């Protein structure tokens, strides 16, 4: 009897939690008809924001992968003086309030900032340009990729890299044929998290890049700007972001499953892996 009560209670709590998490998402799509939402995609504000968001996110993520992967590998495999300082530095943007990150970027690259005069001399102005959006996104999103990449590299068995070396493969071949395939799942998962964080970026972007339509106005900024003007447009943009987030979450789960059983290539997403 007592056990049945406890089971009942737990079930109810679980249902309430799930409903709380699901309802707002459902509401976005329930508020207007899907046809209406699709119509809003031809709204220039929505279209421009989508283009700015995708363009800046793709460039920022490409930069994060190119610079973050070697950095993560070094931090995962070598211990050197200042190692923990480097790790803290990598994680810092994660805990920094986004608005502070924006101010910090302005202080560094703004006209009156630390490198302002240098950039001025080169004829470059960063703040309130699309480059600024990319920089802001890369700054706040990079820790999610790099942290996951470090974990993935640390999880690869050092005996396997040693085996590769004794089999005649140099460090580069070992990295591309052994380390990278084994860490791939973790890297994909990290990229998915970092992409999601970058798409949702608001605070740092509005401080450092402003909110100019067609130039620096990303989807979250456009949602804020359109909020009291055209509620349907904000709903459409929110719908797009929800769908993107779901796609990224799927990517994350695939990545994590891959990482867990690299030999099985299991594509089970929301259940126990078939290997048990």
């Amino acid at each position, binding site marked *: 009897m007592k056990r049945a009560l406890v089971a009942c209670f737990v079930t109810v709590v679980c249902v309430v939690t799930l409903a709380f998490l699901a309802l707002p998402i459902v509401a976005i799509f329930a508020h207007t008809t899907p046809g209406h939402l699709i119509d809003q995609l031809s709204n220039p504000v929505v279209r421009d924001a989508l283009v700015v968001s995708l363009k800046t996110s793709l460039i920022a993520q490409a930069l994060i992968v190119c610079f973050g992967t070697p950095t993560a590998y070094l931090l995962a495999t070598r211990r050197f003086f200042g190692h923990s300082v480097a790790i803290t530095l990598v994680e810092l943007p994660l805990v920094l309030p986004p608005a502070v990150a924006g101010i910090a970027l302005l202080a560094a690259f703004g006209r009156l900032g630390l490198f302002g005069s240098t950039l001025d001399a080169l004829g470059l102005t960063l703040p309130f340009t699309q480059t600024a959006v990319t920089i802001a996104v890369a700054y706040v999103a990079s820790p999610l990729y790099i942290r996951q990449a470090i974990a993935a590299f640390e999880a690869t068995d050092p005996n396997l890299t*040693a085996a590769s*070396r004794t089999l005649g493969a140099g460090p580069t071949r070992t990295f591309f044929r052994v380390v990278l395939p*084994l860490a791939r799942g973790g890297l994909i998962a990290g990229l998915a998290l970092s992409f999601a964080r970058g798409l949702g970026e608001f605070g740092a972007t509005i401080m450092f890049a402003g909110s100019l339509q067609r130039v620096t106005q990303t989807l979250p900024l456009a949602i804020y700007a359109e909020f009291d003007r055209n509620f349907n447009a904000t709903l459409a943009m929110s719908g797009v972001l929800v769908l993107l987030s779901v796609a990224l979450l799927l990517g994350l789960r695939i990545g994590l499953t891959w990482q867990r059983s690299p030999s099985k290539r299991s594509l089970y997403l929301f259940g126990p892996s078939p290997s048990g």
Partner: protein
Amino acid sequence: MAALALEEIVVPLRTFTLRLTFAVDSAIALVGPSGAGKTTVLRAIAGLVRPESGRITSNGEVWFDAAMDVSLPPDRRRVGLVFQDYALFPHLSVRQNIEYARHRSADEYLDRFSIRHLERARPSDLSGGERQRVALARALAREPDVLLLDEPLSALDAHTKAGVRAELHDVLRGLGIPVLLVTHDFEDAAALADRVGVIVAGELRQIGAPGDLVAQPSDSFVASFTGANLLNGYGERADGVTRVRLLDGTVVTTADEAQGEVVLAVYPWDITVSTVVPNDSAMNLINAPIRRIAEFGNRIRVTIGPVSAEITEESLRRLGLEVGQSVYASFKATGTRVVA
């Protein structure tokens, strides 16, 4: 000149310093308790650990020389290393694992190690014995000048172990390159190698043929570690026991089942020495002159025919044993074990 030579290799470890000088020209096994620095020796030879000082050469080619500041990276030393956990690449098939080392077809090795039927399998789908064969094939596919094996039998269960040991024994015999293996099990070492070195806390205590180590251990540690007499012979099953005819004609009875070529193990402390024919339950009686009397501490090893017995100093005095004297060594059929 020895094919592989380690000269005054020094590697500082956490609680002691590894100091070694030895040469490998056939098959040598380093045996010692865990944490004795055995794996470090292999890693230093393979180039995965950099010694503080010393010199490592293979066929006269310098792989490491602290004085000359030479240290070839692992991929430039022609060395095959079979890891304790085999370290097969989990994301590659058996064939791809072997071809990783080879850049050519693995066919020859798939056939030689009878693993062709497994070529598409992933390491996670293989049994322990199969993994070992793949790891060995992969290491040899590199066509190494030296083969190193780290605890080659420890990842196997007792049931698989005997079969794999016999298989490995045959493979190592046919290689024609120096083989260095490390293990914590003296019986494995004696079964697989011509010479056995006992290593304790980074120091090589004694190196020699397995029989010599049992007959004449240099100190009590070697004595306790080397353990059993190993007797090679031909076994035949009859009347519920196995009779094993040794190379010198002696017939030994064992309670274990065996047929054909076998190796029997019997511990020195399970062998009784007497000057007259004993009248007891022991089924094995060897009558031969004493070949050697070796002392270490208060224990004595007395070698009689093919076996060495361990007795106390007091028994030695009481019986008045001397080299050349004809005595009886007896041990029970249940005190022997078939190990290969």
